[in-house]
């Protein structure tokens, strides 16, 4: 049983999600990793424990080209796997339809090589499905799995199978930030609409910086223009599972809770003790975030906490 995993490469660098997808996929069989990009990303991929071989290919960053490339490789593999990221979501269903396979996506647990658990209804229910198809197309939720370790030195093989796209890539509009990747961060600080403004969000970012945390936002905060879209955490944004989630000024709409249910510990800072977030948080502090957050940053810094 062999597994082909599509690596996540962002801006030329291998994304931390890839190690988690490899670790999850290793339960299914020997893993080959397809890297679209350059030799540096392929070298980083070769170091992930559990990778048998890295396939390096050039491809246009378009779903039809990438799924076309995967289709040419598919006959050698029992499992075709990607992260449930915007890339994996874009490419894998297209590939599955080409191969006449019903895919299983956004997997949060692998119970056996053909039995998977995935959330439905915004994470308010978990569906266990068995997949008796001879081959499997899967996407895996990176935040639900631990990362693989490093230290491997798998061989890298360069493919020369150019696959054209009918579409053209015009431009990337990247949210520049030096903060950790939201989908795989150990600590995430999230801000809601109560933060009040884009300036108010600077306070959230400052707390994030103190903790070495990624920064997330609710849909309402994003819609209000306080935070960029790609910070959105929830059913339709990113699904996170950090060790610690600090929800600041977030009431806890169903849609947002869907994105944080996997968090190990949830801390809520809120004025309303009756807010839904206060009901599910492990630790709650009731009060005004504009008073609490600066004090908290000062206390943490006093304790010499700097990550």
């Amino acid at each position, binding site marked *: 049983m062999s597994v082909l995993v599509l690596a996540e490469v962002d801006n030329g660098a291998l994304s931390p999600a890839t190690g988690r997808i490899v670790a999850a996929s290793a339960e299914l069989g020997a893993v080959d990793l397809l890297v679209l990009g350059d030799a540096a990303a392929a070298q980083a991929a070769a170091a992930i424990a559990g990778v048998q071989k890295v396939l390096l290919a050039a491809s246009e960053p378009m779903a039809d080209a990438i799924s076309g490339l995967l289709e040419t490789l598919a006959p050698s593999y029992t499992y075709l796997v990607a992260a449930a990221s915007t890339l994996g979501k874009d490419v894998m269903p297209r590939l599955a339809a080409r191969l006449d396979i019903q895919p299983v996506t956004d997997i949060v647990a692998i119970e056996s090589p053909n039995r998977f658990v995935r959330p439905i*209804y915004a994470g308010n229910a978990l569906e266990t499905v068995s997949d008796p198809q001879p081959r499997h197309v899967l996407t895996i939720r990176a935040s639900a799995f631990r990362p693989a370790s490093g230290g491997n030195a798998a061989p890298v093989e360069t493919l020369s199978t150019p696959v054209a796209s009918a*579409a053209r890539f*015009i431009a990337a509009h990247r949210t520049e930030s030096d903060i950790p990747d939201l989908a795989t961060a150990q600590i995430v600080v999230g801000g809601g609409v109560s933060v009040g403004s884009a300036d108010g969000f600077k306070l959230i970012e400052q707390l994030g910086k103190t903790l070495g945390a990624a920064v997330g936002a609710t849909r309402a905060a994003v819609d209000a223009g306080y935070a960029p879209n790609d910070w959105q955490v929830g059913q339709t944004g990113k699904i996170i599972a950090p060790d610690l989630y600090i929800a600041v000024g977030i009431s806890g709409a169903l849609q947002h809770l869907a994105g944080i249910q996997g968090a190990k510990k949830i801390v809520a800072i809120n004025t309303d003790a009756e807010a839904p977030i206060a009901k599910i948080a492990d*630790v709650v502090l009731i009060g005004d975030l504009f008073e609490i957050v600066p004090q908290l940053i000062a*206390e943490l810094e006093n304790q010499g906490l700097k990550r």
Partner: protein
Amino acid sequence: MKILVAVKRVVDHNVRIRVRPDGSGVETSGVRMSMNPFCKHAVEAAVQLAEAGQASEIVVVSIGPKASNDVILTALAMGAQRGILLETDASLETLAIAKLLAKVVEEEQPDLVLLGKQAVDDDSNHVGQMLAALTNRPQATFASEIKLGDGRLEVTREVDYGRETVNLPLPAIVTADLRLNTPRNAALPMVMKARSKPLAVRPAADFGVDLTPRLAVEKVSPPAERVTGRTLGSVSELAAVIAAEINAMEAI
């Protein structure tokens, strides 16, 4: 340009769903249903293209039980011209849905097919991409902006790192993200008018597509409950909790 919009009837997204005690699924009888929110964004995008003089006809299609007529009527009231219901009481997998839609695309020959990026019941996010594969058309998923010009579409997509812009030749498939637009509410006169618009009801079984499920749903269970935690009295206590948490994390 002719546009086909696919819409789905789902449990209203404001309803707090209940898992059936026997694990057979989510309780859907006697629960408020409505058009999947992302489908509304797709219908709105089609209507806006028509209002800008860039679309000549909007056809709306849904697959599901007779009651799905409701969501087709909603789309007609928002501005679509005619509806098609592929009627079935079976619960279909996304691959079967995409195959049925591919048959409709073959019949209708739309220049653009608009769908929502995902349905809020199964949360699959498959059908647009599968339909693009089956009809051999280019796709732009998670669209937050659509511009038409010169037989091509310029679409801005919401992606993990921010946004990206792609250019697609028509015919193409586009799936709508939240930020594409603000769907209109159909005014009562429009709803009344929608009832006189053509709506063809056809059995899904007549399309020659194998609708047998490929996967077996073994059980549906509620997520692990989180227990209510404790309320702290001061910022110092909170700082101590966070510091302890981080120390435990780094010890691993």
